[in-house]
């Protein structure tokens, strides 16, 4: 009791408490009764939250539980899928056999590495086959696993059959296997190279779902840039088709980078600020403007200079693609940690209300 009295004595003269008395008087004058906070019969005032306070700033959303395998899987899958498409089209249009075989080997390597990465990231890797007990079109993960299965089978078959026919000469069963595998790897490779954009786009993570309509395009261009880069590093630096594809992918990536940079939205903040912003921008520059410049420069001058510049453009695009995938996953973590984003009321009615104040 005496403690309480002493505390109260210390409070005498506190301007906040004096202001409080003023408020009570004004309220009583105005309404004839007291309805100010804390004098209500109903009890104590209730805390009013705002998106900035949240609940002690504890994140509302959970961060993705994935480790490094998943962004690497995005990179490998993107490059392998695009390589399968390049290989098949090169074959159908009569491009040289070595380019076709190299593209197939990239796809085949991806067909082994991709599932290995996906399985390694599972909490219970031994239960991977549980993925194959259902097909759910509404789950991008389910669609993706079946696509991966089709792609891996096709790409592995095409590369293996190509190897057999190069080594032991053509035969009908090998040819059938080669053509069927190639067609499958192309058909499944088309969605396989970009479905990971759908995978992270259709989630509750703000920075991802805000870009749901853009990520698959972005990931497809990134995968194409990497596939062309790997092929050129394998020696195909005279192919005009690859040059055109690499340039196209780099220009597309530059445009997409500009698109993000020119838009302002709090959901996009992890792509622009802090360490995640730095990684995203590094990946963006290496995938877009830098290879664009190098490839344009390689169009002029001698053969040796051109080859050298294309080599650098390839390294840049591959590194850019790899960094971009890690950047998006990292940005997802930053976005999930930000409690303010899901607490903002973005309904049109609410925004109108805010606007009228």
């Amino acid at each position, binding site marked *: 009791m005496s403690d309480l009295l002493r505390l109260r004595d210390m*409070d005498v003269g506190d301007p906040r408490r004096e202001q*409080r008395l003023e408020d009570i008087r004004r309220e009583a004058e105005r309404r004839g009764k*007291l309805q100010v*906070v*804390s*004098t*209500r*019969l*109903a*009890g*104590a*005032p*209730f*805390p*009013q939250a705002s998106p900035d306070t949240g609940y*002690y700033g*504890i*994140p*509302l959303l*959970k*961060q*993705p539980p994935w480790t490094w395998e998943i962004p690497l899987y995005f990179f490998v899958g993107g490059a392998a899928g695009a390589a399968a*498409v390049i290989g098949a*089209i*090169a074959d159908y249009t*009569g*491009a*040289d056999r*070595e*380019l076709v075989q190299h593209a197939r080997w990239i796809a085949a390597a991806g067909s082994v590495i991709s599932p290995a990465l996906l399985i390694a*990231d599972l*909490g*219970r890797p031994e*239960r991977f086959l*549980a993925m194959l*007990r259902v097909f759910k079109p*509404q789950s991008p*993960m389910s669609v*993706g696993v079946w696509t991966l299965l089709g792609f891996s089978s096709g790409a592995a078959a095409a590369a293996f059959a190509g190897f057999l026919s190069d080594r032991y000469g053509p035969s009908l069963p090998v040819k059938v296997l080669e053509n069927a595998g190639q067609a499958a790897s192309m058909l499944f490779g*088309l*969605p396989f190279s970009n479905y990971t*954009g*759908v995978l992270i786009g*259709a*989630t*509750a993570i703000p920075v991802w779902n805000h870009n*749901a*309509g853009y990520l*698959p*395009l972005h*990931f*497809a261009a990134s995968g*194409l840039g990497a596939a062309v880069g790997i092929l050129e590093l394998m020696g*195909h630096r005279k192919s*005009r*088709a690859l040059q055109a594809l690499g340039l196209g992918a780099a220009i597309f990536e530059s445009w997409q980078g500009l698109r993000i940079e020119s838009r302002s939205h709090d959901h996009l903040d992890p792509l622009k600020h802090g360490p995640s912003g730095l990684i995203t921008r590094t990946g963006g520059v290496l995938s877009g403007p830098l290879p664009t410049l190098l490839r344009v420069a390689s169009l002029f001058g001698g053969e040796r200079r051109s080859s050298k510049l294309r080599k650098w453009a390839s390294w840049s695009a591959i590194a850019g693609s790899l960094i971009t995938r890690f950047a998006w996953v990292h940005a997802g973590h930053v976005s999930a940690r930000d409690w303010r984003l*899901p*607490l903002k009321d973005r*309904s049109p009615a*609410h925004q109108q209300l805010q606007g009228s104040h």
Partner: protein
Amino acid sequence: MSVTAFLTDSTLCIGCKACEVACKEWNGISEDGLDWSGFSYDNTEAVGASTWRHVKFVEEAPLPGFGGNAAEHNSWSFSSDVCKHCEQAGCLEACPTGSIVRTEFGGVFIQPDICNGCGYCVTACPFGVVERDQKDGRAFKCTFCYDRQKVGLQPACAKACPTESIKFGEIEDLRREAQSRVEELHRRGMDDAAIYDPLDTSVEGTHAFFIVRGDPRTYNLPPAPEVPTTYLKKSWRSSAIAAGLLLGGTLVAFLSDGNRSDGRGR
């Protein structure tokens, strides 16, 4: 067999955490360490793999003045959080193994013998409920005491709650009860009491709704949760365009390359 729900009435919660204890004990959930968060009496912080009921403690520093309990005491409110068991559940739609199912009681249940820990449900939950247990590898969340409901018992948390702050029953009955309770609270002067049940969002309502005073955001309850399947159409359209561009672009690139058959060189 009826469709059931939780009604968690925060105006009746005394913050005793009996629901947390009962849930952990009934379901045999592992302990998750003893850390002091510094956030009022809340040292659990959020629902997750090893916390399926979680009592939130919302505290405001004393306001100078008199009346009510404002002078010497903090305003202090509690609310027991739980998986919302959404009508349109993001985790259920996202699960690629079919491990997550809707039970005959309307709850959302992870079958532990099927889950392979892909973690996709974690990113799909707009309430941040599901979590992958890093030691066990699988995803976990409230089971709505499916085992108890199957034999006609109420969930452990509801049974252990000493103030009936956690009510369990048939969903339509509870929706009516919530309505009349809020009306009663309004009559008693608590005109900031409201039901949190996001019926008008893509989640289409929940099987665990709440009565809270003030802004639901105080309790980390999102004002506009969206089930991530709403982004599918936009996303797959982009994917189809990307596939078309890749196919068309590659075709054009190779067809227009006159030297394609001898274009290789080191």
